């Protein structure tokens, strides 16, 4: 029987997948089609740029993915493609016969995303059918706790939350820490703006994370665990609740799991909206019910964590790797990647890129390959300027260095960081000073206020950046920024402060000229900083069509029909509307 899968991640739903789903469900019921077709939900297929996505699986195991599906397309897919067996080329995003955006998938290696967009995340049977909970069974009956840790060490897996600390070593520390009670925590407080990897995994394959946590708990001797999830991810929380209930029903969670004598209880804690809680000690404080402020380390959570007990914290993506590593062996995992960075990395591609979405690539792939081969290049074929990696803790890598490979150390050398996986592509229309200001505004807002340098230093930096973008930059401002950055980095307790200046430092490093133009020439070369941009009308090109004057929000444009129009610089707010609407390209930005 044919199967229709509707991609129902948050991206898909916001693009209208729920309407498509309801429509198909109604049709199948009204026309009594349940004998002819199976209708199912699935998680993020990854091609967010063509959402809503619908996949048709044929009896012979092949499939076709359709993009931008609305109810009209859904109707045709149901009646013609599925019921009448008509093959379609239109709307096809991806096809078993290698049509559509092939390069989006064929450069990917899907370990973490192995089930995302394939299974119904609300069905434990779907997960079990794809070897789900097999790794747990194997571990419980064939491995000693130390052997599990050994396997994870051998795989070379490093923390996917951004830090890159070897996962096996972290587990070993917690396992060796004396203490009766130990905890496992999954950090799903994905706060980086522009990152949605963890959300997609939790929404698309929640059981893989739960299984990873179970395996970790067995190896370190923990009987209790918490999933700390952002409250902004209601769908992820809902699916996790369903998954936990199903796993408990089937005996994969709770007392004496599979009669092995191993017991593990898992609870969800909803975050309450504080970026700093992504830091492990702050996250622990938050679970304990306090203000989420970081503490001095050592003692590390592995020694003294939740309620004073040894605690192991890993990120969602890290846990999702674990069952695969157990089932396929550490060697197979370590086969992918570079010398020091093994396996794959999931990236959330966004910004000025043709195919935004969720991709998983082997470590060692170059940034160029990701931007051009996987993501299809820059939107409107504009000039590729830089990528931003690691969000507010990371930095920009300029186009000239885009042959840099995805590897923790190599990326760090550029001044950016691997980070949790947000990868934002920027084109020639992006102002790097404004980018730096954007990230600093974010960290300034999110600074918890504990460390003076982070609290006040970022404020001063933001003031300097603001005056530069407003055309009031002073000589020596760049050096002042660098000086403040160094001090904030060395005088902050946690990762937030230590990395907050990175976006500024890396843009100064690679785009210093742009800063200087803002300060000395009072010009924004990308034309973003409105105080520094002036618009005027070229009298040779203007045909007096009045379009610009009609669109101007401040009535700054005047003139007579069929004669040249003029922009009054006093009232102009440099919004650029006139430039957008001019049919003759007569508006000049300078």
């Amino acid at each position: 029987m044919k199967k229709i899968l509707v991609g129902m991640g948050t991206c898909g739903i916001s693009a209208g997948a729920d309407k498509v789903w309801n429509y198909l469900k109604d049709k199948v019921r009204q026309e009594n089609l349940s004998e002819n077709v199976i209708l199912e939900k699935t998680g993020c297929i990854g091609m967010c740029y063509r959402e809503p996505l619908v996949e048709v699986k044929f009896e012979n195991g092949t499939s076709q993915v359709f993009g931008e599906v609305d109810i009209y397309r859904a109707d045709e897919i149901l009646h013609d493609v599925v019921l009448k067996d008509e093959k379609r080329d239109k709307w096809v995003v991806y096809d078993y016969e290698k049509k559509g955006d092939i390069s989006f998938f064929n450069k990917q290696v899907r370990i973490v995303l192995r089930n995302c967009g394939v299974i119904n995340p609300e069905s434990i049977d779907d997960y079990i059918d794809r070897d789900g909970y097999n790794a747990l069974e194997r571990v419980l009956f064939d491995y000693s706790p130390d052997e599990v840790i050994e396997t994870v060490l051998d795989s070379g897996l490093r923390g996917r939350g951004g830090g890159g600390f070897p996962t096996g070593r972290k587990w070993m520390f917690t396992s060796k820490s004396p203490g009766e009670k130990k905890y496992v925590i999954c950090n799903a407080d994905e706060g980086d703006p522009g990152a949605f990897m963890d959300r997609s995994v939790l929404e698309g394959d929640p059981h893989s994370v739960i299984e990873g946590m179970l395996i970790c708990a067995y190896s370190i001797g923990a009987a209790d665990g918490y999933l700390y999830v952002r409250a902004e991810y209601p769908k992820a929380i809902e699916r996790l609740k369903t998954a936990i209930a199903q796993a408990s029903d089937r005996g994969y969670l709770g007392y004496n799991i599979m009669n092995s004598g191993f017991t593990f209880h898992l609870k969800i804690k909803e975050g309450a909206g504080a970026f700093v809680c992504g830091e492990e000690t702050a996250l622990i404080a938050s679970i304990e019910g306090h203000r989420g402020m970081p503490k001095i380390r050592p003692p590390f959570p592995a020694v003294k964590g939740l309620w004073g007990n040894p605690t192991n914290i890993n990120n969602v993506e890290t846990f999702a790797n674990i069952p695969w590593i157990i089932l396929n062996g550490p060697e197979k995992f370590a086969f992918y990647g570079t010398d020091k960075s093994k396996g794959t990395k999931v990236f959330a591609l966004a910004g000025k890129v043709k195919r935004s979405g969720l991709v998983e690539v082997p470590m060692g792939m170059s940034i160029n390959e990701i931007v051009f081969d996987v993501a299809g290049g820059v939107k409107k074929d504009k000039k590729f300027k830089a990528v931003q990696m690691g969000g507010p803790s990371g930095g920009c890598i300029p186009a000239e260095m885009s042959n840099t490979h995805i590897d923790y150390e190599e990326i760090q050398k550029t001044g950016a960081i691997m980070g949790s996986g947000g990868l934002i592509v920027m084109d020639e229309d992006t102002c790097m000073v404004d980018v730096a200001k954007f990230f600093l505004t974010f960290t300034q807002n999110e600074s918890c206020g504990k460390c003076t340098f982070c609290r006040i230093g970022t404020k001063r930096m933001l003031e300097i950046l603001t005056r530069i973008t407003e055309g009031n930059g002073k000589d020596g401002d760049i050096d002042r920024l660098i000086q403040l950055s160094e001090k904030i980095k060395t005088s902050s307790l946690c990762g937030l402060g230590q990395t907050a200046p990175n976006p500024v430092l890396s843009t100064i490093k690679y785009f210093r000229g742009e800063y200087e133009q803002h300060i000395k020439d009072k010009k924004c070369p990308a034309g973003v900083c409105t105080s520094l941009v002036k618009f005027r009308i070229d009298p040779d090109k203007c045909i007096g069509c009045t379009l610009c004057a009609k669109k101007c929000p401040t009535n700054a444009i005047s003139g007579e029909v069929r004669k040249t129009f003029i922009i009054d610089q006093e009232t102009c707010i440099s919004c650029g509307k006139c430039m957008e609407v001019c049919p003759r390209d007569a508006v000049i930005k300078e």
Partner: protein
Amino acid sequence: MPTALDELNLESFNKSIRKYRGKNGSIIPLLQSAQDIFSYVPEQVIEKIAIATNSHVSTIYGVVTFYKQFRLKPVGKHIIRVCQGTACYVNSAKEVYEVIKNKLGIEEGENTEDGLFTLQSVACLGCCSLAPVIMIDDETYGSLTPEKTEKILDEYINREGEVK
């Protein structure tokens, strides 16, 4: 908009208190449940939580003000959340935000005088491929332009007018 704490709501909040009493780390879940019930965290509730968790009122207040999720004031009928994520920023979310602020005459965190809207900015709504994005209540609006945004707000305002 709930202003006075009605008995029914208080009763359902007391149920939450009974559920969490004496449990470790229950301050945040209690605040979350209070906000679900009252749409904000009323002063009276802070006192109740302090007693139930055996902590000082100032501790609870500290937690409330630390996390973005919690509000000390009632909210408008519709909550507008403007995404401030990187992808939205790169795709001119600033313009969209300006349009909303100008049209409604409010700044972040404020309510319109008629109590129809509350404006909030959020770090990232996580639908980056639809940038720039706003959410009004549970509805997500993507690929926005200033014109489109204005139209959406008008729809809400007109709908309200018709009801009246």
